[in-house]
């Protein structure tokens, strides 16, 4: 096996489990959700690239030890005319992974858009306009708030929530949902939703999805807290959570809602600029590693 294929395989293995597990356990992402979100995006992209790149470069070995060398040999018609079966299998595997990742991403994008359109239609019929022009009110007693992103974004609050929370808390909830929409958080989540579906046997995909989901919530909390205040938002979170009807509950640890409320109250200090820079550099390096291995190595 060429050194390049081996390096890509090692990178793919690291990004499939140990790196996501490490980042998921780390405490610093709570202090800087934006940087953590960027790091997760590059882990996802780099993981996908190396997962495709490793079998691809290995499969091209009969034509050259690296991707550029093999492509040159293929284009000029030089190189081994009769590659072994294992190389062909590797090439088919690379193609299969690439097709699977892209098609699932495309399919979830389409499915999600369709489900959203249907739900917007249903909600528009039963909801009435809220006091805030961006919101719709639905007459149910449970404390519920959510937003449906997309072309025609929609923030939905339940009557129960509006009557249970005071005005400032309701405004904080709306600010939180509005942050999801203006920051386009659904786009951060989309690739992880798709990859968890495409590669459910990779433990890292589920981990990454949960982590990104929680970070997106924390980021929306931070944006909302700027206008609504950290305590007001924490209070809205705690009251909404405390009033929630527990369902299928076996978890005995503090869930994401408690973490978010506590985090808002403690107001963690921002990451030191040095650490922040280091994390951003790691994100860039993660993206450059498989790209460099594919395009530059062994020229």
């Amino acid at each position, binding site marked *: 096996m060429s050194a390049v294929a081996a390096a890509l395989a090692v990178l793919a293995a690291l990004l499939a489990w140990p790196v996501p597990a490490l980042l998921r356990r780390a405490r610093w992402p709570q202090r800087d959700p934006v940087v953590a979100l960027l790091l997760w995006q590059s882990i996802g992209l780099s993981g996908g690239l190396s997962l495709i790149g490793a079998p691809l470069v290995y499969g091209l070995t009969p034509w050259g030890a690296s991707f550029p060398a093999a492509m040159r040999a293929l284009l000029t018609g030089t190189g081994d005319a009769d590659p072994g079966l294992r190389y062909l299998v590797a090439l088919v595997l690379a193609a299969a992974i690439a097709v699977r990742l892209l098609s699932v991403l495309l399919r979830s994008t389409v499915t*999600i858009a369709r*489900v*959203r359109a249907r*739900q917007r*239609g*249903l*909600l*528009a*019929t*039963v909801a009435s306009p809220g006091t805030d022009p961006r919101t719709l009110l*639905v*007459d*149910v007693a*449970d404390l519920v*708030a*959510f*937003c*449906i*992103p997309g072309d025609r974004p929609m923030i*939905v609050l*339940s009557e129960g929530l509006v009557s249970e929370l005071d005005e400032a808390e309701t405004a904080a*909830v709306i600010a939180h*949902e509005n942050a*999801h929409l203006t920051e386009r*958080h*659904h786009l951060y*989540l*989309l690739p992880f*939703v798709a990859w968890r579906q495409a590669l459910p046997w990779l433990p890292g995909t589920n981990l990454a*999805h*949960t982590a990104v*989901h929680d970070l*997106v919530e924390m980021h*929306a909390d931070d944006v909302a807290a700027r206008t*609504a*205040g*950290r*305590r007001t938002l924490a*209070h809205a*979170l*705690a*009251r*909404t959570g*405390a*009033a*929630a009807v*527990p369902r*299928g*509950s*076996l*978890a005995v*640890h*503090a*869930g*994401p*809602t*408690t973490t978010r*409320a*506590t985090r808002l*109250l403690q107001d963690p200090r921002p990451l030191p600029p040095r650490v922040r820079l280091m994390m951003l550099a790691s994100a860039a390096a993660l993206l450059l590693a498989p790209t460099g291995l594919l395009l530059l190595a062994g020229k």
Partner: protein
Amino acid sequence: MASLGELERSIMERLWSTTSALSAPELRDTLRDGELALTTIYTVLARLEDKGFVEHDESRPRRFRASASRAEHAASVMSDVLAHASDRDAVLTRFIDTVSAEEARLLRRLLRTRPEVLKPDKG
């Protein structure tokens, strides 16, 4: 001209507010001085039937009624919509996820034992 969505809402408001079934011409007459075309009313009613909000009888002309009360419709739409949120599939983002009994207890304790939570941020 109001959007189909707004018309759906007005027609549902009308149907929810009465116990008797109404025909399309009767509905038209109660909506905005009866200026709408009957075909428009039928289109909107067909859409509402597709969504399961409305059902009709076999009299001539057909008479329409809400298939459930306003509160029942609201509850069923909400549980339908939130069922898609439970597996975190990016269709929508909830303010908070489903909370376990233990977590709800933790949050109640947080509210009780951290009185500073109750203080407003300013003033």
